[in-house]
Structure formats: C-alpha cells, structure tokens
C-alpha cells in the first residue's frame, strides 16, 4: 500500500505534474484534429522523451493516449467528424443532439462519462495489475513464447483490413526484428554488411515512419474539406435528467471498456462500439438511438476511456502490449532502459505507481479543461492540415536525427514512411507490424530458450500447464473464426442473424452481416490512428454513413450534408475563406457528390 502512496508522491512532483498536463493537452489536441492518432503522435514525440526521467516520459505519453479519447469526442459531436476512431460511434447520437441544440449536454455527459470510466478503470487497474504481475512472475520462456504469439494473433484477428493482411504485416514485423546481430551467436543477420544495421533496426524510426510519416503521406492524397467553427456551445452541464438517464450507460460502459481494454487487440475502438451496441439493445426504445439518445454518447465515451486505461494492464504487468499505441509506449520504456514485465511492480514501483496514479490526476485535468477550453479546441480546427503537415514532417525528421545523431535514421524514417503509405494504400494495417516488431526479439529469445529447455522438443509447450492453456487459447483464436466461416458458408441464409447475435460489436442493423464484419474490423484497428485512419477511411466511414442512414430522420443525404454543406457556406465569412481550406492538395481526385 505504501508503494501506492509513494506513487502519488511521484506524480505530485512539479515536473511530473507539468508533463502530465502537457501530455493530456497534446492528447486532446490530436484528438480534436483528425489526421494524427495517438500512436503516431507518441511515435513522433519519442525523441523528446529521451531527456526525461522514465516516469516523467511515460506519464506524458500515457496522457496523450487517454487525452486523445476526450478530444475525439468534440469533433464527433459538433462537426460529425470523428477525430479518433474510438469516437466514430459517438457521432450517431452526439451529432443528433448537437443538431437539436444540445451539443453542450452531449459534450458534458461525454466528459463526465470519460472521467468516471477512466477513474473506475484506474481503480481496477490498481487492484488487478499487481495480481496479474504476481501470477506472471512464474512465467518462463515457454509461457512468454506462447503469450507473445497469442498477443500478436489476437491483435491480428480483430485488426482492420482483415486477418490475413494483419498476420502478414505481423510476420513482416517479426522479420524486421531479426535484422542485426543474433543475441545468442552474434552472427550478423540480414545486415547487408551495413554497420548501421549491425545493432538491428531501431524501434524509433520504424514507429515514426510507419505511423507518423506514413500517415502524413497517406493524407496528402486526400481531398481536404473546409470546416467551419460550429455554433457556440451553451449549457455545457448536462441536466439532472440527462445524468439519470446516462448513469446506467456509464456504469456498463466502464465495465465493458475495462474488460475489452485488457484484451489484446481490444482497446478503445472496439469497446466504444460494443458499449453503444449494448445500450441500444437494452434500451426500451431502441429507435431513439441515432436521433439523439444521451446514452448513445455516454456509453461509448465512457467505454473508450476505461479501455484506454485498462489496456495498460497487459503492458505494465506482463510486458505484452495490447495494441499499437501500447506497442509504442513499450518501445519508449525499452529506450528508457526499463523492460516492462511482471517484475516492474517490484523493481520499479515508483515508475509503475507513478504512471498509474498520474492517470487520476490526468483525468481530473481533462475534466477541468475539457469544458471551459472547448472554444479553444474548436478554434484549433481552423489550422489547416496543409499547414500542419510540413511542421509535423520536420519535427519527425529532426526528431529522428536527434535520437542517435544519425542521418541514417532519418533515411529509415523516410523509408518506413513510404512503406507505411504503401501498406495503407494496399489495405494493410501497420499496427500489427509495429507490435510484432516490438515483440519480435522477446518472441525469438523465449522460443529458443524454451527449445533449449525442452531439448528441441516442441511438445514441451503443451506439457507445462500455463503455456499449455495459453497454447489452447492460441489455437482457439485461430480455429474459431475458421469454424465460423465454414458454418456461414454452409448456412448462407442464416448468416445475417447468426453474425448479428454472435457479435457484440454491432451498432449496425442486425441482419447486415457485412456491416458487422466491417465494424468489427474497424473496431480492432485499435488505438493507432495508424490503423484508425484506415478504420475511418474505409470501415469507419462505412459506419458513419450507415449510421447516418439509420439516423435517417427523414433524409440521409440531408443529414450527411448538414454536417458539411454549411461547412462551406458558413465558411465564407470565416478565416477559412481567405485561403479556401478546401483547396486540396489533390483536386484531381474526383469531386465528391
């Protein structure tokens, strides 16, 4: 218990408080700005953290992550633009409420729900993580081998772009991790005689390239549309009736978010969708959803924050990142010389409890800031992507250099940026690749140690109880979807219903199996905007338009344009007009509508 209290002492150090504040502000900003997600932002800021103490660095990075969950809500509600993949479902009811002039209530309830979900999740994290870590202390190389495999497999299973592509990306990541000197024999592998590669590929340029630069290059091709500052938000505090109506949704959202956040591949996106689906199914009048049901905002916003917090459990207690953002934070810890794992609680209690407890403070800061600073964040939306892009690129390139004072690293960032761009074009999510790269050397080392332990007999994995159980889970993750596919093929007529019932992630119409699959796909895409972009770009947008379709309120096309047409007309008169922000880098891409 004293360690927990010491953790608070760590957080309350002025430096740590300051970086916690910086982290959550950056998180909110990038949450508001569609374009860069938390994984990309954290990757880009990795070099900045080098000069910091490990605790301070991770406090800031964690703040970016959960801060982004708050920020993503604002644009979903006000502009019908999900700033984050995890706020896609908030658009449905959040924007409907805004159109009824109740944007304030929606944002208020989202902030309160986020705060409650986040805080409950931290309490649970405080209790659960040390237990998991204690249990995992007995893990040997075989358990870690299977655990790492299971983690990669789970992330791939619910990743966007389909399981095959995600697994392929993961395998490529594992391959990249083999570059460099072999830990056991010091044999040089795939270095092509290049001295810079002898120590292996560095995590930082890979993460910066695949997530950060890849994202920016991908966005260059996109048509940019003007956004006008939305109407003034009044009456931010939700009414007592709203609170009463949302209390159940907030409680359930916290639980769903916490549980799904722990699962590898789960995380904020999936849990926000699951929480929304649950509320809709439980509702006495489900037809209210999509037309401005306050629970439809409260549930997903609570869940995504709870999940963002609980996804730290596997990282801090097992050393296994549960999603792309956690993979980047894992990398940040390694760079700081801290290897996340079960011994973290005992060996670095100040770090463990400092980071965990900083989340309480961070959530309070977010609650305090999110409502009064709303106007500021909305104004930030006026900064155009065309202006932000070069600045971000330069921060990335110079930042990459400062890590090792190496021009080679800048080259790597550019190379991986191009790779990330191409992967996105081809529908491959870079998230599993980064995750697998991070886990690659752990996986290989544990596998080879295990095989030494078992005298090269792979059945040894099955005979140890924990690794055996984990292995069974691993097989289940592979076989269940296969079985599902086979069953679906055999009963093509029943598919829709079966899919609708078997999935939790279904805010879409029951019976629309295709829709379900896509939602699930975008859900798994995790936090990384690396993936989130894809999720929004393809799957997520499917979601949004479907939602609008359901929101319906008469004319879907009207609904969809409401969000945008005024964007153009009102924009005349705003700053945007002077430089038509719609002025796209890619005008030649076919005109929409």
């Amino acid at each position, binding site marked *: 218990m004293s360690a927990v209290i010491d953790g608070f002492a760590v957080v309350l150090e002025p430096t740590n408080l300051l970086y916690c504040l910086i982290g959550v502000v950056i998180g909110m900003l990038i949450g508001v700005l569609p*374009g860069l997600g938390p994984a990309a932002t954290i990757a880009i800021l990795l070099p900045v953290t080098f000069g910091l103490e490990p605790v301070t660095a991770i406090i800031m990075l964690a703040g970016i992550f959960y801060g982004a969950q708050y920020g993503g809500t604002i644009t979903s509600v006000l502009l019908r633009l999900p700033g984050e993949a995890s706020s896609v479902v908030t658009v449905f009811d959040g924007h409907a409420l805004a159109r009824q002039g109740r944007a304030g209530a929606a944002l208020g309830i989202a902030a309160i729900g986020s705060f409650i979900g986040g805080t409950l999740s931290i309490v649970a994290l405080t209790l659960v993580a040390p237990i998991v870590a204690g249990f995992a202390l007995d893990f040997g190389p075989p358990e870690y081998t299977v655990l790492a495999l299971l983690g990669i497999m789970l992330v791939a299973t619910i990743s966007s772009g389909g399981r095959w592509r995600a697994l392929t990306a993961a395998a490529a990541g594992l*391959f990249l991790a083999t570059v460099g000197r072999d830990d056991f024999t010091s044999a040089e592998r795939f270095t092509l005689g290049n001295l810079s590669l002898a120590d292996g590929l560095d995590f930082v340029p890979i993460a910066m390239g695949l997530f950060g630069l890849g994202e920016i290059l991908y966005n260059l091709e996109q048509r940019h549309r003007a956004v006008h500052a939305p109407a003034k938000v009044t009456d931010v505090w939700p009414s007592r009736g709203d609170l009463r109506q949302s209390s159940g949704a907030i409680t359930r959202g916290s639980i769903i978010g916490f549980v799904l956040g722990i699962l590898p591949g789960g995380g904020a996106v999936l849990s926000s969708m699951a929480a929304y689906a649950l509320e809709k199914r439980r509702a006495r009048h489900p037809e209210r959803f999509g037309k401005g049901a306050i629970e439809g905002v409260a549930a997903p916003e609570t869940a995504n924050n709870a999940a963002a917090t609980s996804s730290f459990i596997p990282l801090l207690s097992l050393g296994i990142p549960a999603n792309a953002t956690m993979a980047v934070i894992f990398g940040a810890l390694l760079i700081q010389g801290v290897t996340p794992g079960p011994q973290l609680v005992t060996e670095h209690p100040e770090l463990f409890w400092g980071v965990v407890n900083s989340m309480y403070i961070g959530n309070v800061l977010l609650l305090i800031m999110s409502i009064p600073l709303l106007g500021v964040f909305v104004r930030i939306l006026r900064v155009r992507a065309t202006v932000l892009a070069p600045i971000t690129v330069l921060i990335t390139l110079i930042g990459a250099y*400062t890590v090792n004072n190496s021009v080679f690293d800048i080259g790597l960032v550019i190379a991986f940026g191009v790779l990330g761009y191409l992967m996105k*074009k*081809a529908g491959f999510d870079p998230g599993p690749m980064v995750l697998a790269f991070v886990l690659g050397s752990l996986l290989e080392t544990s596998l080879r140690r295990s095989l030494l332990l078992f005298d090269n007999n792979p059945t040894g994995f099955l005979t140890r109880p924990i690794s055996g159980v984990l292995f069974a889970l691993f097989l289940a993750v592979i076989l269940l979807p296969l079985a599902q596919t086979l069953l679906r093929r055999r009963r093509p007529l029943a598919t829709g219903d079966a899919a609708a019932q078997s999935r939790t992630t279904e805010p879409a119409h029951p019976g629309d199996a295709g829709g379900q699959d896509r939602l699930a796909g975008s859900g798994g895409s995790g936090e990384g905007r690396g993936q989130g972009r894809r999720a929004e*770009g393809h799957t997520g947008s499917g979601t949004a338009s479907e939602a609008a379709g359901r929101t319906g309120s008469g004319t879907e096309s009207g609904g969809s344009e409401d969000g945008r047409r005024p964007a153009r007309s009102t924009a005349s008169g705003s700053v945007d007009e002077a430089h038509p922000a719609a002025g796209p880098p890619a005008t030649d891409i076919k005109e929409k*509508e």
Partner: protein
Amino acid sequence: MTTEPLEEDRPPPAGPAGNLIAATVVVLLGALAITGASTLGEGPGTWPMIVGIALVLLGLGLAARSRHDDPPERFTRGSLLVVAAVAVMAGYVTVITTIGFEIPTVLLAFVWLRFLGRETWRTSIAVSLGTTVAFYALFVGALNVTIPHLF
C-alpha cells in the same frame, strides 16, 4: 483542413491485380528471409526460417484471396504529391549534413506549403520562415541538440 475521411475522399480502388502484386511482394520477402536463413544455418537461422516460411504461406494465402479481398487504392495523379513529398525529404537528408538544417528546413516547409498544400505565397513564406526560426530556437537554442546547423 479537417478531413472527414469518407471513402469518396480517397482514390478509387484498383483491380484485384493490385492484391496479387501485394501478395507477390510478401512471397518475395518470405523467400528472401528463407534464403538468408539457410545461409545462417541452424541456431541464428532457425527463427528467420520460420518467419520466412510463414511469410511465403501468408503471401500465397493472400494471392488465393486476391479476388475476394478489398482491392488496394489506385495510384492517381494525387499520388504524385506523395512522390514529390518523398523526393523533397530525400533531398533534405542528403544536404543536411553539409549545409546544416536551416536552409533545407525553410525549403522543405515552403515546398510542402506552397506546392503540395497550395497555400498562398504569403502563408507559405511566413510559415516556413516561422517554423525554421522556432525550430532553431528550440533545438539549437533551448535543447542544445547536436543537429548540424549553419548559423
């Protein structure tokens, strides 16, 4: 500035051939891993061999599914922007060690703003100069980073 990433904003899909190309790349990568692994021999080569085989199998799987999977996006004239952007960055890397980061930074920012982003001349010049000054103050002045600089 803000984008609502609807599919309409993105380039149109290419045919299933695009998926086949991606699958081929994966198979080739796997083949590369296997070749490298076999020269390394057992021990250091075992794991790359496993990964290589997995890549080849996954690539073949992707090829088999190429008709069903969502096709990749087509390369359009908009993709030229990406080529240009990468070229500018490559230029940046090659000159930064000899002439310092200040001039390349101004130029990169300017090209991205004016030609890739179609900002006005005034905005482009102001933002690129402002960014460079800010970076100089931050990296050289405040953080004292060892980045090569001219001034």
